[in-house]
Structures are given as structure tokens and as C-alpha cells.
């Protein structure tokens, strides 16, 4: 669906009639580009294993990957830290034992790494951030953002033509080339997933447990923070809280024991466009009497479970849309003035899209890195295989994925029967397809149209040991 259908090149002075179909392709392209020039963006999952709990000693704070594209020069990382003492963070690329960068920490920190050479287009760069010299369990480290820039395309902006009665190939092809350049720019920016949480374990005690910590970027003025999921409650009373930059921004209604609830939180972002805010989602248990009784009676305690499949910035309702000119009709007389007006309206739409892309460099000049599953070692990585998986709502036509034993799951999650009451919530997808088999890391390019029943707009997960997963428009 997201492919851009453009007409064949126009040719001058060969008795080539101007086709309404061709002009409508340009009109449709302008409409599509106008819509695509706004983009919802998944939150960047930034915290370390177990969020805030870690041992005294060095550990992995963050790991993930991004896909190198021709023209990329710089890898950027930034975040926050507290209680770190004399510790630093070290950044390792592609499994190297030698750090590519050492970050001297402050309350906020950032660093850049030159990646202008040594890679071929499509290479997946593995990134790992580790502490160096961490001495306390009380320290906190947050990676807020990892991305590469610039995003370069091979086509160039041809400008847009003005029509005043001459419909030559120069002007008409200029429209085609303008559409293509805008599309190239939009399609070159990968669409990252939400690091989905599926029946992630909360707590069975009266306490506040952090379920999620990361950041979300307000890319457009219309953006709100949207959190979608479900909860299965095993405490007598609890609710969710969302903190934005450490300040309580949302308090959910109280959930009762054994209730199953939908989570649909929409929070209006008030930060400046282009800025990110720190997002923390907490489970707040106010009454755990039943759980305490079970525990006291030597039965098991049950943590509430949470599924957060989507955490992203998006328009509260929809992004604005330009008004397109009237569609072109074949075999119907039209004055030159009307034809000029409609073609010039397409020019204006394209020009406005270009301005939007140029302005929002924070969105259209960056390729975001993708978080790999939280884990401090392979054992934990395997154990959490079903709990933390990249989650997409299909927008593009193509998925680039690197990892081991990777499959795509869609069409609903089917809970498997359990032998005990621990509620591990083992599940499988109703529909699935293996895309990388075996225990050898590989990169696959998946054409989503080939997955029967996975329609645009539908949710799906990427299961397995996923190093990197991102959609491309086409």
C-alpha cells in the first residue's frame, strides 16, 4: 500500500496526450506524501535490565542496533545518569571488545561516534552500552536516545513548476521527480517498533514498581503520548501512574482483584516540538491483602501482569491534511485555467511537504536505533523471549530484521494451557511465519504483503532473538 505509484516519464512533442490517470497519480502521490510527512514514532526504550535494579558492579545498560545507510556519518547517544560516582559508560560496536567511545557522565550526557566508513548499505550495527566502574546498586543510568544521521538519498529536490498554459515534459516530469525525492526521503527513515511488554510481571506487594522507562519525542505539535495494552490484576487494589520527566502526569483508575482491563492512555505532550521527554510507567499497589494471605498460607504470590504493546507519540485524533485539487477526469473538457490551477495546487502541496521534512530534522534526518530485549545474559535473554518482543502496528510494506530463530506473529496471541498457577503466560501467535531459522544470526527482508492476513494497520510481533527490527515504507 505505501508504494508511490508515479506516472511514466512525459515526453515532449511526440503527440503524447496528457493522461488524466497520470495526473491523478501525481495528485494521489501528493496526498499520500502529505500524509506521510507526519509520522507517529514509537517511544525509545531506554533503561537497563530490571529498570532500576541492578547489582553493584558493571552491567549492560542498553543494547540494540541500527541499520547503516549510505551517507550516514554519525552515531549519537544521549541520556541521563545519577548516583554514578566515578563510573563511566562505554559504547561497544559490533561485538568489539574495544570501546568505540567512553562517556564521561553528567546528569545528562551525550556522545557521538564516527560511523562514516567501514560499513556497507544495509549493514546492521550492533551497539552496546555498559557501565565501567559502577560501584553501587543505587546508581541509575538511562539511555534516552540512540540514532544515526544524516539520512541521505540519491535523488535530489528539483523544485516545483508553475503552470500557465504550457504542459511540457520539463514541468510535468518535475512533478514526478519532486514526488520521488520526497518519497525517497520519507522511505529512507526506518520505522522502529515499540519494545512490547507481554504479560510482564508487576508486583504482589504494596509498593510502586516501574514497568517501563524510556523517552518519547514530540515530533509534531499534534503529538500526544499514547499507551495501549491490557492488565491482569492480582492485587486487591492498584493503579497505573505515568511520570513525564519525573513528574506525575497521569493517574489511572483503581483496578480490583482478578480484573482484566484495557489500557488506553493519551497524554498531551507539552514539551517543545523536537524535544524528548522521559517517560516512566509505574504500577502502584495500594492493597495486596489477598496476595499476602496466599503467601502467608505458603501458597504462591501472584504478581499482576501487564501488556504494553504500544507506547508512542501520535496525533490525538489525526494529523492535518492538505486539501487536494479536484481529481482529473478523462474525456471531459477542461479549460487551461482550471488545468493550471489544479497542477499548481499539486506543486504547492509538494512544496509544503518538502518544507515540513526540512524543518523536522529530528524526524527525517535520523535513523533510530532499535532496542534489543532486556537481558543481562543469554539465559535471561532466552527466558524473556516471549515477554519483551518488538511490536509493530503495520504501516510499511517491508520489514528488515536481524537476529536468530526469528518469526513474525500476528492475528492474536493464544495463551497456552498451564500446568500450575504461576501464570507464566506462555503464548503463541495465531498466525506466524519463520523468517530466520536456526541459531545463526542473519538478516532478512520480509515483504509484509506476503504474510496472509497481515493487513496495514494490524498489530504484529517479531519473535525470537531479535537484534534489530524496523519497517520500511516500501
Amino acid at each position, binding site marked *: 500500500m505505501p508504494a508511490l505509484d508515479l506516472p511514466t516519464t512525459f*515526453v515532449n512533442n511526440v*503527440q*503524447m496526450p496528457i493522461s488524466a*490517470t497520470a495526473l491523478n497519480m501525481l495528485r494521489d502521490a501528493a496526498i499520500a506524501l502529505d500524509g506521510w510527512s507526519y509520522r507517529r514514532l514509537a517511544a525509545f526504550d531506554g533503561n537497563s535490565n530490571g529498570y532500576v535494579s541492578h547489582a553493584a558492579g558493571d552491567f549492560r545498560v542498553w543494547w540494540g542496533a541500527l541499520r547503516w545507510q549510505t551517507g550516514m556519518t554519525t552515531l549519537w547517544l544521549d541520556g541521563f545518569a545519577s548516583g554514578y560516582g566515578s563510573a563511566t559508560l562505554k559504547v561497544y560496536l559490533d561485538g568489539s571488545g574495544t570501546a568505540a567511545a567512553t562517556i564521561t557522565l553528567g546528569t545528562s550526557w551525550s556522545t557521538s561516534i564516527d560511523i562514516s566508513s567501514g560499513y556497507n548499505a544495509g549493514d546492521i550495527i550492533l551497539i552496546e552500552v555498559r557501565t565501567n566502574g559502577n560501584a553501587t546498586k543505587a546508581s541509575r543510568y538511562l539511555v534516552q536516545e540512540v540514532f544515526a544521521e544524516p539520512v541521505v538519498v540519491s535523488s535530489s529536490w528539483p523544485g516545483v513548476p508553475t503552470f500557465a*498554459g504550457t504542459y*511540457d515534459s520539463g514541468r510535468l516530469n518535475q512533478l514526478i521527480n519532486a514526488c520521488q525525492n520526497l518519497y525517497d526521503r520519507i522511505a529512507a527513515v526506518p520505522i522502529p517498533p515499540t519494545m512490547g511488554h507481554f504479560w510482564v510481571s508487576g508486583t504482589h506487594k504494596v509498593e510502586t514498581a516501574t514497568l517501563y522507562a524510556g523517552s518519547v519525542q514530540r515530533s509534531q505539535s499534534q503529538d500526544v503520548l499514547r499507551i495501549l495494552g491490557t492488565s491482569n490484576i492480582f492485587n486487591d487494589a492498584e493503579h497505573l501512574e505515568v511520570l513525564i520527566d519525573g513528574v506525575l502526569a497521569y493517574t489511572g483508575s483503581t483496578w480490583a482483584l482478578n480484573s482484566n482491563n484495557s489500557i488506553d492512555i493519551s497524554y498531551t505532550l507539552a514539551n517543545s516540538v523536537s524535544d524528548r521527554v522521559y517517560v516512566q510507567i509505574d504500577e502502584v499497589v495500594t492493597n495486596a491483602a489477598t496476595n499476602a494471605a496466599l503467601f502467608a498460607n505458603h501458597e504462591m504470590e501472584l504478581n499482576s501482569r501487564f501488556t504494553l504493546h504500544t507506547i508512542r507519540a501520535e496525533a490525538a485524533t489525526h494529523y492535518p491534511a492538505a486539501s487536494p485539487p479536484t481529481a482529473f477526469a*478523462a474525456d471531459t473538457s*477542461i479549460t487551461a485555467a482550471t*488545468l493550471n490551477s489544479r497542477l499548481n495546487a499539486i506543486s504547492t502541496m509538494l512544496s509544503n511537504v518538502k518544507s515540513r521534512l526540512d524543518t523536522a530534522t529530528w524526524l527525517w534526518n535520523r535513523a533510530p536505533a532499535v532496542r534489543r530485549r532486556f537481558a543481562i545474559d543469554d539465559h535471561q535473554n532466552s527466558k524473556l523471549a516471549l515477554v519483551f518482543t518488538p511490536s509493530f502496528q503495520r504501516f510499511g510494506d517491508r520489514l528488515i530484521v536481524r537476529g536468530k530463530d526469528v518469526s513474525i506473529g500476528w492475528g492474536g496471541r493464544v495463551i497456552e494451557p498451564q500446568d500450575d498457577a504461576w501464570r507464566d503466560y506462555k503464548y503463541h501467535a495465531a498466525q506466524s511465519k519463520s523468517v530466520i531459522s536456526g541459531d545463526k544470526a542473519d538478516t532478512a527482508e520480509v*515483504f509484509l504483503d506476503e504474510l496472509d492476513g497481515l493487513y496495514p494497520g494490524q498489530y504484529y510481533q517479531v519473535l525470537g532473538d531479535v537484534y534489530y527490527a524496523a519497517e520500511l515504507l516500501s
Partner: protein
Amino acid sequence: MSIHPISYLIKWKQSGSWVALTSGKITDFAGGAESALSDAGLGFGDKVTTRQTITALRSEVQGQPWARTPFQVVPTVDGSSAVAFVGVNTRASGDAETVTFNCVGMTDDLPNRTKDLYSPMFYRRPVATKTTASSIEDPTDGNYAAGLINWVLWQAGGRPYEQAGSYPTADFYYACDQAVIAPDWAWIAGESGWDEALRLARAAGGQNHQALDGVIRYKQPLLLVGTATYTYADTLAGATDALGVYDKDSPKEEESTGQYFTKIVCSFTPRSARPMQEVINDDTPRKVEPSETITIDLEPQWPITSFLSGATADTLPAEHLTVTRFDGEPAAAFTYTVTQYAQRISIEFTNDELIPVVIYRIIVHGTPVTTGETQTISVGSGTPVMTMEDNIFVQNKAHALQLATMALAFYGTARKTRTITVPYNPARLVGDTVGLTCADMSLTAAPHLVYKIDHEAGEVMTLAMVDVTGIPTVDDYYIVSTSAQAGPKKLAW
């Protein structure tokens, strides 16, 4: 009917050159041309066939090759001279005195000339591109961007008519209009290239003509009908000249509904390029003797747009070609070249070892173009309904709608066909737009498209033509042009 002086020059091609036959030694000739497939000459993808019989004294033609020899006929009537036939002899018969050559136009010979053609993949390229004095028509030119119909005609030995001076010994000439539709993907893979050229014309509208002058033309739909510059009438005053005066008793009229539809149904099968993947895995053992060169042709299931090359663009990755000696050790001395077509990989392999080697496996990775689910659209309403053929080159909804809407504009009116008998005029060709005046039929210079011509020994000819009043022509539409256009006009489909 008045008397018109006629002379004619008949040439045949011997040893690559056109040689005139002595006029006094030609005893008879007759011929004609006809558009086929449809009953009114307006069918998309119609082709025009021409035929000619030439009888000459045996003494004139004895001792020269006859089989598939090209012939050319150039009559002159009332001082007007024009090439009236170009084709090849397909059958010669005769007696002790004379030999009669039965010749057909190049369109009849094209299926023979275009067998087993394999083209590269053409993406979003008009099925035919305008031939001009400077258009690049040679497929080996690095800047080649012509259409697939041009490609087929070139491979068949044709050369662009507008560049005839550069190709004086060409087997035939072709001239193409710019097609109005470009399929997503177009290619030829071993089928008859000419049949595919006709299929392309049906996918884009238009016709592949060969008129009596021997030039094979692709005409785009809006140029099928031009402006009439010659008028036939039953009086000299009403006709353009004396050759335009028809026999008063000759006009015949017919209205057939075989090409009349009010609803058009068209199907399409989407095609998409897929990511690089294994498209050939051939494990047929092939022994190659020392210094021997063999050609291996492999065909992937789907056409491909490109293949994964090795160290150079015409090789495979080393691990994709397994060549060993008899003792199982890898062969070290061999050379090969890979040539890629849309649906064929051709490998020319030479064993440079001093001992035989065996090619055990060839793997090719490529980007295939695969099909989606066939879908159908329709335009218009009521009956009669025309279901267009399943055409491999119609690959998206927009294309199907364009084609069906265009067809409806051509076939949505029942059209009359008319025949007249007039003095022979070699300047009149199938595909000409002429005016017809006939008081009895209430016609005054009404535009007609000539779709069939028969003549006998260059004396009289019968013209069959279709009334094209109201049919869309390029003048009705805005065109892509460097000149300003005032309008109002229409946009095409």
C-alpha cells in the same frame, strides 16, 4: 471511369542490394492489404497484412535465389510514384515461360524472424517509443530507452524509417508512435516476439500496421485516425483529384456490431519485484572437454530484474559455480561470461584446463518479479459486453481502467463500414484517413479510415473503410508539448 497512365518498377534483393527487374519482363502483378483480427479496422492490436503476386519471364529471374527473397513494388500512376509493397517471396511456381512469386509483407514474416527472443526487463516503459531521426534504437547502445515493440522490430532486422539513410540495406523499416500506456513490467521470453508485440499493442491500445509501403508502424490509439487530406466522391468536383472519383455504382455499406460494446471488462494481474533470492539451482552435471566452449541457458521460474554478480558484472559469486576435475579437485582454469535476460541466464563457459572438467552446480540469485491475485474491473454499462483478453502486460488497476475506458471510447458507437472502387493510386495506404462524399448516404467528406485495399495489376482498387466520425483523435486532447495550449481540451485516459 477515366484512363490513368501507370508504370511500375519492381525490385528484388539479391546479394544484399535492391536490383530492378526489367519492366518489360514482368507480365503481371496484383496485391492488397488488410487489417486483421477485427471487422472494422479499429481493433487494438490489429495488424495489417499485405500480399503481392508478381509474374515475370523465367529468363529474367532464372539463376538467382528465389526462396524468401525480398521484393519491392513501386508503381507510378498519373505521375504519382510510391512504394506499394515490400515483402518476401514465400512460394514460387511457374512453367517454362514464366515464374509467379507469391509474396507476403514483413508482418507475415515477423513470426519467423522473432522466434526465441529473450529481452531484458523493461520497467514502466511505453510499449513503443517515438522513432525519430535521432532516437536511439540500437539495443546495444548504453543509452537505449526505446519501447519493447521497437526492440522486437529491431531484433527482426528492421531499422527506424526516419533513419533509413543510415540503414540503406535494412530488411525493412519501422516507425513507431509514442504509446500512451507503459506496463509495469514487460519482457519477452522465448515466445514469438511478434505475437508479443501485438499483445503489447493490445495492452496499450493502438495497432501494428504494415501498409503497402512496407513500413511497419505502431500507431497509438489517438493517432489511428488523422485529418483527412484526400476526399473520394462520385464527381470530379467533389473529389480531391481524378484518382478520387469512385464508380457511382460501387459504394456498399454495412453496419456490423462485432466491434460495438457498451461495457468493457478488463482483468489485470499485479506484478511486484521481490528481494534478492535464489532463482536457479541447477545440479545437472555437464562435462566440458579441454578448450571446449559450451553455452548453458537456464530459465528461472519468474522473470528477474537483476542477478547477484561476482567479482565482475558478468560473473557469479565463486561459491555459486561448482566446477571440478575428475578427481574431485576444484578446476582452476576456466573462463565464463554470464548474460542476463529477463527470463534467461545464459552462461558461456570455456574449459581452459588440459583435462576435462565437470560443472556440477550453478546457483543464481536474482530479484524475481512475481504475480499477485488476478482482479477485474469494468467500465460502462449494459450490453453488449466486451471482455478483454487476459493480457500479461496489464498489471495494475490504473492500467486496466485506462485501457478499458479507452476501448469504450472507440467501441462505444456502432460504426458503418463502406467500400468503393476507384482508380488505382499507390499513394493510398491502409491506415489512411480519407473523406468520403456520397449524397445517397448523406455523407459530405465524412472521415473514414481505410482498413483494406485490393488492386488488380495496378488498374483499379477497392477500398474498404470505416466511418470514424466522432472517434477520439489527438487534436481533442492536451498534449505534452513545449507550445502553449489554450484549451478547453480534454485529458486522455
